[in-house]
């Protein structure tokens, strides 16, 4: 039985045993349910093997929402633990695991799939394409991400969670100080998900460069597509850095090299450096798509075209390059000289300028607009002041000398939540509500949605604003408790109350999905928001081939011009459409990747070698396979289009 000892939890608690039981029961329930309702074939044919960008987008969305709640529970546990001084709810080790998994889950397994959910669903529709450039690689991207996420999530019931922070700095993350397999999970699961993200990056750049509708020049692309293009460019150049960093970390932990160690010439600071070479661009990978979503929403609900399109494009292009020039500001206190800190201080301040330009563009878009305060618009308008607080405190942190006061205090925690939550979470909730009717064919209830917004917006500020003060008073981040004499108790209790408010807000969103599924009208036409871009020119729900005839574009807002000026959007006859075939290989290959990662986590070399060979066998299979896709005949298209046109006419 010694062999199986490695899978035991090094630091168990009743909560973890309860989770084990819960996970086991859920898995059994899912398996029994699928069998009882005879849904295995449906699941395999329609979802597990799909290469349709819309379905992949929806799967990303479901995964992201699941992870949002997983990370949210971690957050609530942290706030509950620190709500009162000398709390005994969690011990130090457990608290370390919770803040580590909270960070990793939220950034890598919630925010990333959320932006790829919306990109997958929306970008091909916005540019008038049938699918992405490499549909099968797209499926592989999703499944690699998903298996990475699952691998990470089983850590707390098999072998122990990572506990060295989401940044996993060495030497703390090295074998000497992190003896459980937790950090191995961190290295392998992010590696697998990261490969998926890199593939997505390549896929979307090729798609946006080569598959735009006729007449859609680069400077006529919708803003969300522009941000998607630039985001993926950053992905392609930033994620290889993460790949190497994780590889070197794996070499140190599993193969005994001395790259990040404290002995034999190793340099632990190198990890921090490489991590942030990826980490800072990653911040912009998260925020740029959000900027694109806000641009679409603010323009739609102000019923005006976006102010300063060209300056908007220029600023995101500048950000894409600058995002690689500021990484040192994450470790001003590490010990490098004043010259370095000064250089990176200046670049940090400089990158605030293009972001500021955007804020003004949004404000000026709303000026003289006929603003409709729908739920997506509420999030967008709410974002502007909250994000500005995040930005201003960011400039405070960016001053290297002042940073010595703020570094690793709750002030920093408040700052980055003030950027990431309005910047990413608000944007994703706004985008979700905005594109929901296109995805599922009905609207989310506006009244319930507004309740959720106010709970989230107020709950967020009540949670994080007090942290600016406790941070300035010297409360360090990642401390599992504090004494009563420190006086942090009241403000931390306030944070906890706010966190509960946030939780209620998210619960209301869940209720809204349930309520709207049951009660919302299915008869909403194809353009319920009176929007401006091409995705609203398709039928709802969108056909597998997206557009029966490729749209012809000659302005930034072709669909709007079509509606207002009667410019024809679709010309010519319907022709047969070439579509890619479904494939089970991406799913199977990703399952093998899961076992591969698991084998490395526990240094089980025989399964590791077998799965490595199996992964290459999948690639070889793909190389030899002949797959020319299939055609949808004109007759079939005309039949489906007729039905939808009838429906569309009825709704008018």
């Amino acid at each position, binding site marked *: 039985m010694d062999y199986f000892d490695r899978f035991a939890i090094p630091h168990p608690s009743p909560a973890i045993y309860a989770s084990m039981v819960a996970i086991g029961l859920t898995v059994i329930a899912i398996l029994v349910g699928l069998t009882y309702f005879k849904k295995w074939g449906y699941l395999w044919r329609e979802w597990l093997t799909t290469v349709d960008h819309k379905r992949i987008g929806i799967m990303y969305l479901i995964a992201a929402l699941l992870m949002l709640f997983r990370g949210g529970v971690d957050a609530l546990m942290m706030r509950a633990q620190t709500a009162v001084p000398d709390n005994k709810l969690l011990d130090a080790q457990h608290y370390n695991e919770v803040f580590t998994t909270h960070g990793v889950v939220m950034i890598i397994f919630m925010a990333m799939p959320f932006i790829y959910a919306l990109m997958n669903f929306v970008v091909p529709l916005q540019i008038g394409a049938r699918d992405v450039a490499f549909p099968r690689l797209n499926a592989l991207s999703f499944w690699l991400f998903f298996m990475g996420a699952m691998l990470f999530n089983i850590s707390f019931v098999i072998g122990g969670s990572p506990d060295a922070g989401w940044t996993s700095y060495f030497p703390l993350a090295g074998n000497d100080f992190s003896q459980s397999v937790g950090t191995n999970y961190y290295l392998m699961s992010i590696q697998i998900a990261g490969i998926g993200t890199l593939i997505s990056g390549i896929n979307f750049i090729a798609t946006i460069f080569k598959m735009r509708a006729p007449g859609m020049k680069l400077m006529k692309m919708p803003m969300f597509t522009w941000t998607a293009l630039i985001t993926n460019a950053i992905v392609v*150049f930033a994620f290889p*850095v993460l790949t190497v960093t994780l590889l070197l970390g794996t070499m140190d932990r599993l193969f005994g090299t001395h790259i990040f160690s404290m002995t034999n010439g190793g340099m632990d600071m*190198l990890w921090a450096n490489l991590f942030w070479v990826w980490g800072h661009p990653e911040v912009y990978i998260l925020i740029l798509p959000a900027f694109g979503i806000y641009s679409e929403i603010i323009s739609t609900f102000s019923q005006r075209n976006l102010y300063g399109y060209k300056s908007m494009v220029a600023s995101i292009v500048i950000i894409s390059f600058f995002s690689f*020039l500021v990484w040192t500001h994450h470790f001003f206190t590490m*010990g*490098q000289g004043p*010259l370095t800190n000064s250089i990176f201080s200046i670049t940090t301040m400089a990158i605030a300028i293009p972001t500021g330009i955007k804020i003004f563009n949004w404000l000026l878009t709303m000026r003289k607009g006929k603003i409709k305060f729908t739920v997506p618009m509420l999030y967008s308008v709410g974002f502007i002041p909250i994000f500005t607080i995040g930005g201003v405190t960011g400039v405070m942190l960016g001053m290297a000398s002042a940073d010595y006061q703020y570094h690793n205090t709750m002030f920093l925690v408040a700052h980055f939540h003030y950027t990431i939550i309005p910047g990413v979470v608000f944007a994703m909730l706004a985008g979700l509500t905005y594109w929901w009717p296109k995805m599922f064919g009905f609207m989310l209830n506006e009244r319930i949605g507004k309740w959720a917004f106010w709970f989230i917006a107020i709950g967020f500020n009540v949670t994080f604003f007090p942290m600016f003060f406790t941070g300035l008073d010297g409360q360090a981040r990642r401390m599992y408790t504090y004494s009563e004499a420190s006086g942090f108790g009241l403000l931390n209790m306030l944070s906890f109350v706010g966190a509960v408010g946030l939780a209620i807000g998210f619960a209301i969103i869940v209720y809204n999905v349930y309520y709207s599924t049951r009660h919302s009208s299915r008869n909403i036409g194809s353009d319920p928001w009176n929007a401006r871009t091409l995705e609203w020119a398709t039928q709802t729900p969108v056909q597998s081939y997206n557009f029966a005839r490729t749209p012809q574009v000659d302005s930034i807002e072709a669909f709007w011009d079509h509606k207002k000026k009667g410019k024809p959007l679709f010309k010519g006859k319907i022709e047969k459409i070439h579509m890619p075939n479904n494939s089970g290989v991406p799913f199977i290959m990703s399952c093998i990747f899961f076992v591969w990662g698991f084998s490395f986590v526990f240094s089980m070399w025989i399964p590791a070698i077998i799965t490595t060979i199996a992964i290459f066998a999948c690639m070889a299979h793909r190389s030899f396979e002949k797959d020319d896709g299939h055609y949808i005949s004109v007759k079939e298209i005309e039949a489906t289009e007729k039905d939808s046109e009838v429906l569309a006419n009825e709704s008018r």
Partner: protein
Amino acid sequence: MSELFPRKQVMGFVFSLVLTAAALTVYFMDVSFAVGMTILLATAFIQAGVQLVGFMHAGESEDKVAIYANIYYGIAIALVTIFGTLLILVWDM
């Protein structure tokens, strides 16, 4: 027959051998570190350029703008990363 002869490839090959020989001077001759690095930087980047344009046909398709932008962007960020890292961890530590 003239179009059958792979002139571009042969020229490229000869050129890359010459550049390799030039790079070897830093080993066989006694040069200072600065001069040596200058020679190596020059020979390496010219070689890379020969491969890129001559052998890899980077500029032949309709996507050459995207391809060159991609490569230049990659090289720029690669240099920023390498020199930035050296600045932080070696030269200014």
